[in-house]
């Protein structure tokens, strides 16, 4: 008979057996036995964050940059509730994550005990699945199942709530059999007949377009490689959602840029005029479709998604294919060749697209030679770093959209951003997680001066673990996207969107042991960036940019792809109530 082990030891050993190398966490009363187990071992590295929300975003950044699940460990009550934003963020963006929360001892559950919260109740609808483990013998199978669920199918966060007495109580470790689940079996292989139909539609289309999303990134690097091959075989243009950037190289001439609310003119017009849309691991989000009844009105639609509930949710499609997008693309390439479809002649389609490209929708005015336009700052950052294949994280707002438009990605897992939930404060902890998973890669958080303050405490985490992350703040002294919407829809009534009482970011960085750099004029831009890159350690750059610049192109909420605004001059003063009610 093998000796029994405590629940805490079983947890740590099982995590270690599952290949977990890093855990992002914050200790507290209800997880003390687990922290003691961590103290007594060396296989798992614990990263101490400064706020539990940051632990979840760091885990997301780690997961997105490495393809491995991110693991979070927090205490009961406030530890768990602070993690809820990051759990929801991971659910929306399909990030594999396992969150372990401490809970008050079993006997105290339901008594309003100190630091008690109904964690499984609170996280039930913002996690892919969750568990309350009341028996130490159930810990190992539950943890294994949790990792299987978090990483398979459409990935997502799984929460395991462990009462303190279950961490202390002992049990024998079970067999390390294969992980499975009796009912949960995601469909990963595509239906062969549907694939054949898809490639026939593709071969017959005159104006096809690939609309790709984060599913390609989640499927793994092979899916990105296959996407390149499929685009090459068919010669069709490719656009992507915010979450899918990098899956297809921005340097390829078939790349149209991002689509949607702040997407390019050519991408959105091509979607509008296409006769066939092939959606690959993308979910027809409202930021992509604009007004639904005007979305791609004359196109047939093929939708490949691993989540059946994503199909026909917002947009009716003609050919649904439930599958992992990687195997589905491979099957499409094989079927395309097997059925001896030639590379179609899309020259007329491409000449129309090239006409739209001539509009130069991402160009911007630079009237004052000294004022840095935010787009200029992003382009300068890209020029200076593109040979280093950096990982870019962002916060949420104008800077995020400018980064998506003007920073170009040629590879997957290089672009980490909060897409679905739109969580300000994501970028710095995500950069920390990404850097831990990729110690030798340049990691930059492109931030706004408002967003960065939402998890600014994490400067200390980077310092503690000697992580050389860079923060590049586009400081326009406004919550820029809020201000932009107020300008467009509320006659420039800038209600509470001014970033007053800003800290001196240079001094703030220095207080935490970072290097601080301020860039104020255009002639300082390249040298400031070079100084940031030359420094072997964490750097915070306060880049002062034009205060009132707007992010264009823009499809206003509830408008069609053809109603895109390209310039500030097209902006009207106040929208009607129907438009105001849309997000």
């Amino acid at each position, binding site marked *: 008979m093998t000796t029994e082990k405590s629940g805490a030891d079983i947890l740590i050993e099982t995590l270690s057996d599952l290949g977990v190398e890093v855990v992002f966490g914050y200790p507290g009363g209800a997880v003390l036995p687990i922290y003691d187990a961590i103290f007594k071992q060396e296989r798992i590295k614990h990263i101490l964050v400064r706020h539990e929300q940051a632990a979840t975003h760091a885990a997301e950044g780690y997961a997105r940059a490495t393809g491995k699940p991110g693991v979070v460990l927090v205490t009961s009550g406030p530890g768990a509730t602070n993690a809820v934003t990051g759990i929801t963020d991971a659910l929306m963006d399909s990030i594999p994550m396992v969150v372990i929360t401490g809970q008050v001892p079993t006997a105290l559950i339901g008594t309003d005990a100190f630091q008690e919260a109904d964690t499984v109740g609170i996280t039930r*609808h913002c996690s*892919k699945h969750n568990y309350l483990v009341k028996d130490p013998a159930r810990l190992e199978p539950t943890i294994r199942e949790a990792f299987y669920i978090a990483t398979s199918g459409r990935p997502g966060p799984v929460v395991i709530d462990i009462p303190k007495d279950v961490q202390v109580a002992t049990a024998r470790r079970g067999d390390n059999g294969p992980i499975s689940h009796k009912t949960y079996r995601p469909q990963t292989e595509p239906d062969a007949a549907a694939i054949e139909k898809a490639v026939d539609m593709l071969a017959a289309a005159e104006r096809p377009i690939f609309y790709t999303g984060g599913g390609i990134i989640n499927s793994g690097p092979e899916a990105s490689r296959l996407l390149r091959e499929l685009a090459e075989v068919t010669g069709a243009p490719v656009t992507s959602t915010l979450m899918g950037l990098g899956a297809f190289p921005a340097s390829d001439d078939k790349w149209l840029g991002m689509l949607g609310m702040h997407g390019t003119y050519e991408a959105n017009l091509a979607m509008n005029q296409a006769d066939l849309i092939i959606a690959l691991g993308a979910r027809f989000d409202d930021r992509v479709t604009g007004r639904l009844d005007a979305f791609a009105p004359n196109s047939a639609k093929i939708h490949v998604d691993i989540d059946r509930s994503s199909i026909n949710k917002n947009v009716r499609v003609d050919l649904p294919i439930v599958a992992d997008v990687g195997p589905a693309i491979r099957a499409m390439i094989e079927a395309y060749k097997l059925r001896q479809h030639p590379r179609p002649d899309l020259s007329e389609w491409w000449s129309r697209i090239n006409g739209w490209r001539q509009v130069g929708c991402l160009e911007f005015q630079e009237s004052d030679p000294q004022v840095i336009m935010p787009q200029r700052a992003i382009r300068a950052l890209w020029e200076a770093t593109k040979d280093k294949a950096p990982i870019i994280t962002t916060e949420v707002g104008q800077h995020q959209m400018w980064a998506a438009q003007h920073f170009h990605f040629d590879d997957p897992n290089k672009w980490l951003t909060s897409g679905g939930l739109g969580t300000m404060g994501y970028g710095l902890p995500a950069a920390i997680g990404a850097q831990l998973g990729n110690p030798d890669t340049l990691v930059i958080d492109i931030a706004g001066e408002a967003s960065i303050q939402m998890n600014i405490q994490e400067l200390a985490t980077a310092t503690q673990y000697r992580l050389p992350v860079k923060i590049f703040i586009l400081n326009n002294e406004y919550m820029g996207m809020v201000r932009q919407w107020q300008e467009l829809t509320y006659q420039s009534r800038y209600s509470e969107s001014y970033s007053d009482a800003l800290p001196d970011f240079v001094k703030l960085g220095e207080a935490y042991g970072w290097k601080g750099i301020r860039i104020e004029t255009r002639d300082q831009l390249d040298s400031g960036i070079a100084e940031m890159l030359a420094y072997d350690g964490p750097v915070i750059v306060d880049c002062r940019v034009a205060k009132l610049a707007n992010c264009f192109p823009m499809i206003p909420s509830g408008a069609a792809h053809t109603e895109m605004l390209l310039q500030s001059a097209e902006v009207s003063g106040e929208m009607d109530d129907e438009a105001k009610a849309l997000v």
Partner: protein
Amino acid sequence: MHIKEEAVERHTLAVIVDNEPGILARIAGLFTARGYNISSLTVSEISDDDLISRITIVTHASAPVMEQIIAQLERLVPVHKVTDLTAFGPHVERELALVKVSGTGDHRIEALRLAEVYRARVVDATTSSFVFEVTGGVEKLDKFVELMRDLGLVEVARTGIVAIARGAEAA
């Protein structure tokens, strides 16, 4: 600006699930979180080992929303199978009600007579009251309760709807 509403149809769903803690909250919460409606929900264990439960849900939704409801339910980890019995075709729906009526004299006699017509059984009786057990479709139960209202209805307990497909096969 006014809020628009969509035309909806009634559907009866059979949902087979792992009988685990929180499963009902998970399903009920999915309906509220995504703005779906629940008219009736019943749940009970159906396997010998008590590991599997069958949930019957009556909902009102438009066709696209109905498709989403099924897909969203199937996405839940503990859900084995979801069947839209309304779309499946012929099926039987039944509900049970316990109806307490108090009264004397003619009201009491009339209540008994109506109970006979509705094949309601008397499961409790005092000199001044009856508890009737009546089963059937929703309309029959609604009607019976309505009739009892004039005859001294005290309270009603209803189970909600259970449903199963007609024929030899499982739906």
